[in-house]
């Protein structure tokens, strides 16, 4: 059974995503969660959870931030509210949140998500023993490693199959600092649409922006496992995440719809990677090339 998880930027987009057949929605607030398409209010999250449940689908809320004291002070109240409104699960990366969950004794399950750090079955098993019902794999793993991990853990391994991947988070306002230094008056938020390129590779284009959690840099290509989805299923990788953090509105919904169609095609044995690949390229923004990231590499290629 393949599960397709997609980020949602609004109540309306959430409804559209449910309509096209997304199994699980992923939303949150910037104060507690990292790199979301939009920071939603609790009222919006409540509306989305009700919509999801109408469709008999799930809602996961991001509580995967790196929490400082003032964040963790607010966590118990937030978790209680998420539990009250019927959220199905949360993602967590900070052990302080897990400790809080245990103390509150809520029925709110958590999926372990410490981003770049989640790289082995033993690591995930540590958190499964402490209550995790799933884990989000680091984006820097190979398919060989992902298969290995999934085969050695007792919970679903969430694997990003579409979208940009975060490759750097600093608490510092790195770009604002640069603009102050060079006396430029420029915005540094996501809407500003800034990119970096490497000194020796001017073709690269790493998106960079600042928000209340600091500075975030993304991969030069959007990850896409579209051509390899059938292979993923054969290897047991069936929990797919689509990340729309840099892609707004209807276009993301249409891409999500395409992945849902791909899932259905695989389940009915009618999957043709070339057809789906062509359709994805038609929908993909021109300034965001697609690539397989680390997935096709050998485990020893990056050390």
């Amino acid at each position, binding site marked *: 059974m393949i599960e397709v998880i997609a980020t949602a930027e609004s109540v309306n987009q959430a409804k559209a995503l449910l309509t096209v057949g997304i199994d699980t929605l992923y939303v949150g607030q910037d104060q507690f969660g990292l790199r979301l398409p939009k920071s939603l209010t609790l009222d919006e999250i409540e509306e989305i959870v009700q919509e999801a449940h109408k469709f008999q689908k799930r809602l996961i809320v991001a509580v995967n931030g790196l929490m400082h004291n003032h964040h963790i002070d607010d966590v118990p109240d937030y978790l209680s509210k998420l539990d009250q409104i019927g959220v199905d699960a949360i993602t967590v990366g900070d052990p302080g949140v897990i400790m809080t969950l245990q103390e509150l004794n809520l029925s709110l399950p958590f999926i372990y998500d410490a981003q770049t*750090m989640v790289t082995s079955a*033993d690591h995930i098993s540590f958190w499964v023993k402490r209550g995790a019902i799933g884990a989000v794999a680091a984006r820097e793993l190979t398919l060989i490693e992902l298969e290995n991990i999934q085969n050695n853990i007792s919970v679903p391994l969430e694997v990003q199959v579409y979208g940009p991947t975060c*490759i*750097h988070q600093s608490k510092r306002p790195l770009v604002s600092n*640069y603009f102050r230094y060079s006396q430029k008056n420029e915005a540094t938020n996501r809407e500003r649409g800034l990119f970096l390129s490497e*000194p020796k590779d001017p073709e690269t284009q790493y998106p960079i922006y600042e928000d209340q959690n600091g500075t975030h840099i993304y991969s030069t290509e959007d990850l896409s496992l579209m051509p390899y989805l059938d292979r993923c299923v054969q290897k047991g990788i069936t929990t797919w995440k689509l990340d729309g953090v840099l892609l707004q509105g209807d276009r993301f919904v249409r891409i999500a719809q395409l992945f849902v169609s791909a899932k259905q095609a695989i389940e009915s044995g009618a999957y043709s990677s070339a057809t789906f690949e062509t359709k994805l390229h038609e929908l993909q923004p021109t*300034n965001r090339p697609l690539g397989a990231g680390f997935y096709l590499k050998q485990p020893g290629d990056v*050390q």
Partner: protein
Amino acid sequence: MGVKMKKPEILAPAGNLEKLKIAIRYGADAVYIGGQDYGLRSRAGNFDFDQMQEGIAFAHDRDAKVYVAANMVTHEGDSKGSGEFFRTLRDIGIDAVIVSDPALIAICMSEAPGLPVHLSTQSSATNYKTLEFWKKEGLERVVLAREVNMEEIREIRRKTDVEIEAFIHGAMCISYSGRCVLSNHMSNRDANRGGCAQSCRWKYDLFDMDDVATKHSLIKEGDDPFSMSAVDLAMIRHIPDIVSTGIDSLKIEGRMKSIHYVSTVVNVYRKAIDTYCSDPENYTFDPAWEEELWKTAQRELASGFYYHIPTENEQIFAKPRKIPQYTFAAQVIDYDPSTKMATLQQRNNFGVGEAVEFYGPGLIHHKQVIEAIWDENGNAIDRAPNAMMIVKVKVDHPVDPYYLMRKKR
């Protein structure tokens, strides 16, 4: 005479056995080293078990501790053999291991019970609840994320009694530790497995794109390019804050650094902390300490996140605004008080007529102009050009073995 303060541990980096001994001779209460595996400094001179045993014996004779950093973020297969590795560390007398990966923590706890575990800064522990979690798991100490400020540390100290370690000096990741894979993407080297290529210190173009994906650079001709390079951390001006906050261990970064660097930095903090703790009320900061640190500084120095979020002044875009003025020239291996002759092992070319400075533990300094040099056979020579060559020079003030000699660049 004021009330004496509890002294925090000074924890120094030791890239090899020589650095370990120097760090302890210059006042470190503990050192951290790397083993052959499971560490994050694959290119630092790491220790095999024999070298560790020699280091442990040396340290324990002087009431100092030795920790092993095993802070790799393991992939499938990387943790193989780590149980035996941890058991061996425990059995040869290592005082603690510094780990970030929960897989390794679990292995260490089950395979080598009794070996204390410290959570590495690589795990970015930033709140009191997280420290409580790790305490409950049986960890003895948590190394805080570098992003935690002084007020936050005070609150953490009030709310938990697990040992706290914090960085007070050295180079810093500009990201949250562990949350950066620039190196993986740009150099095919895994930042979390010891391969970091320091991509943050590169120079980047910064641009936006129009509707047809044409790039427009925001960096004009003559502008410094964008970079993410952090200046280094130095808390020497803030010793009273650091000590009164109740941090148990003060960590100095730099397993790749030279004995010149390690000895200088440890020497300064030893002096400052001893001075403060012996009489907090009458303590004053001595600017000479900071001057001393500048002699081996690699970059500008600032207070990191302790008092504010770092600004453009703590990020390097242009050429470094200050560079180290001294270079390591020799180590004293013997001294004859009757002839006032010091025997030196050369570490950098120096010659007759050059102004040098000898220094030793306790922040002792002697300025000296080299008047004559004799080689091992007693022949007078103008310069000492060969690495590790043994020479004799006459000195005006007594020196001791393990004093070091630096010269102006």
